């Protein structure tokens, strides 16, 4: 059942459950930061509306910079602002930033220890109709390999807001991942958030499998948990909002509670959340693991729901993975 200690949204499974894109939480948090911290500046590369930076622009025009279609320039300008004491948030689609400008981020932001927050939007195949060119499915892999870069993937717009506010407190570079579509609100304002801490959203007494999920896919994992509950199969669903730096011993403990693992993410199965969990387990306590995500292929245009089903990231596919790992 939903973990009572975390004050999660009890109406989550209702048909009319509230939905909102995680990027909305980003936009709201930026305005809040603008009011409380005069060093916060925002840069965008011709995507102010869809990456939700317009409200910040309207409220703080002097601290907003429209860079035009130039993501490398955006990253390096932000680096210059950061070493001069500003806290820049750069905002674009994840395919372009940190995709197109990855080396600029590596050199001028991360290796340079510049306090820049990189917001990558339209991540995952959930981006839908725009097609594979605009669906970032490699960005977690691209960012988590950079030494000293923190990586966060919020599961809903409320958690997104908390993460953004928290990220401004971190003295160092941060990557933030957002999705385009409206997704269910899983948490509430009361749900605690702590950097690096994986949280058990679905708790059971004798779990057979531990699901580690990230981003809005945590909802699909919770759907799977609810269906499995009716079949008397107990599992854990752990929301991993911090990809890096993560508390490794907690990941190991949670995996050991069941002895079997499924990773769930809207990202390539290589190098993302599943990769991170596998590395930690291989080092500390090798356990069987199944991977839900994009299976080393590009997706295509389509309705997000149809894509999630076709590329086997829906609750049915997660349930299959749970059965499979139990049989191993």
């Amino acid at each position, binding site marked *: 059942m939903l973990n009572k200690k975390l004050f999660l949204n009890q109406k989550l499974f209702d048909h009319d459950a509230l939905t909102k894109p995680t990027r909305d939480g980003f936009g709201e948090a930026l305005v809040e930061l603008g009011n409380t911290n005069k060093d916060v*500046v925002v840069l965008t590369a011709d995507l102010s509306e869809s990456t939700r930076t317009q409200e910040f622009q309207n409220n703080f025009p*002097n*601290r907003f*910079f429209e*860079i*035009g279609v*130039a993501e*490398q*320039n955006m*990253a*390096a*300008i*932000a*680096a*210059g*602002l*950061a*070493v*001069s*004491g*500003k806290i*820049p948030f750069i905002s674009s689609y994840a395919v372009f930033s940190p995709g197109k400008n990855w*080396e*600029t981020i590596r*050199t*001028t932001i991360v*290796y*340079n*220890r510049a306090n820049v927050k990189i917001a990558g939007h339209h991540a995952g195949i959930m981006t839908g109709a725009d097609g594979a060119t605009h669906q970032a499915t490699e960005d977690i892999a691209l960012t988590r390999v950079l030494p000293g870069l923190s990586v966060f993937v919020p599961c809903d717009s409320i958690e997104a807001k908390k993460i953004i506010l928290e990220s401004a407190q971190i003295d160092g570079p941060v990557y933030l991942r957002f999705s385009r579509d409206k997704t269910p609100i899983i948490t509430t304002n009361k749900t605690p958030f702590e950097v690096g801490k994986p949280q058990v959203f679905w708790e059971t007494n004798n779990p057979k499998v531990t699901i580690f999920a990230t981003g809005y896919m945590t909802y699909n994992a919770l759907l799977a948990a609810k269906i499995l509950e009716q079949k008397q199969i107990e599992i854990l669903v752990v929301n991993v909002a911090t990809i890096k730096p993560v508390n490794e011993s907690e990941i190991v403990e949670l995996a050991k509670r069941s002895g079997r693992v499924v990773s769930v993410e809207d990202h390539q199965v290589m190098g993302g959340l599943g990769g991170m969990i596998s590395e930690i387990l291989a080092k500390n306590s090798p356990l069987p693991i199944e991977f839900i995500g994009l299976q080393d292929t590009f997706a295509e245009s389509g309705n997000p729901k149809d894509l999630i089903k076709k590329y086997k990231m829906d609750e049915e596919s997660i349930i299959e993975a749970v059965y499979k790992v139990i049989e191993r």
Partner: protein
Amino acid sequence: MDTPALTQEKLKDLELKANRARELVIDMLLEAGSGHSAGSLGMADIFVSLFFHILNHNPKKPNLVGRDRLILSNGHICPIYYAVLAMSGYFEISELKTLRKINSRLQGHPHRTSLPGLESTSGPLGEGISQAIGIALSGKLDRKKYHTYVIASDGEQQEGNTWEAVMFAAKHKLDNLTLIIDRNNIQIDGFTENIMPLEPLKEKYLSFNWNVIEIDGNNIKEFVESVRTAIAFTKKPTVIIANTIPGKGVSFMEKDFTWHGKSPNQEEAKKALNELRTLQGRIQSENQ
């Protein structure tokens, strides 16, 4: 801070210092066994003018809020950068010998947080002007008086990022930013005009709404005057296209692109240092 015009005495002092910096570059590169000779030697006059006449800086307080900023975009010519930093007193001259070696603060390409005096991390080309823009923008936001200088190579004008930055600086009328292009006509694979022609470079910058000054980059007097003009200019960023001789001061390296990314061996270094010593004597006698 205002940059005064050069007196004859100061000019001689700077010329001697540039010569000394060239010697240090040869020493460092010989010891390191690899590194970039031509650009480092060619830019000695400009680096020395900046650190010993133009920049408002304090080696004892490298993080001084109001200091002028110098960004080196083409990080591979860092031997000359390190040499003038050491000569200025940011660290001991003896540390120059650790260039490119393990446990050294003098990385093969500059790493900002490793060494006092560095304002950016560079090596991958085309990223310095953008970083300088961020620093200049921050200065405008905070109404700070510092000036931001950025040195870029001519070869890196081929990077798309360069022109993204050039457009932005003009849009924001960053008159607190001065770009110095080391126009030495060489890059690793050959002459720029054969690899990927840059000309007409001056007209390119003019058409991008920059203030353009073209000078002999090995003439300290011309360079100082061009900076004085750049600082006084308002409403536009200024680019100083500095025509330099790659390998300047060492006859067998001058204008030879094979010296772009090469360091001298023992014999070559000895020959180079001899030439620089002769040059030093000439500077001393000429200005008497």
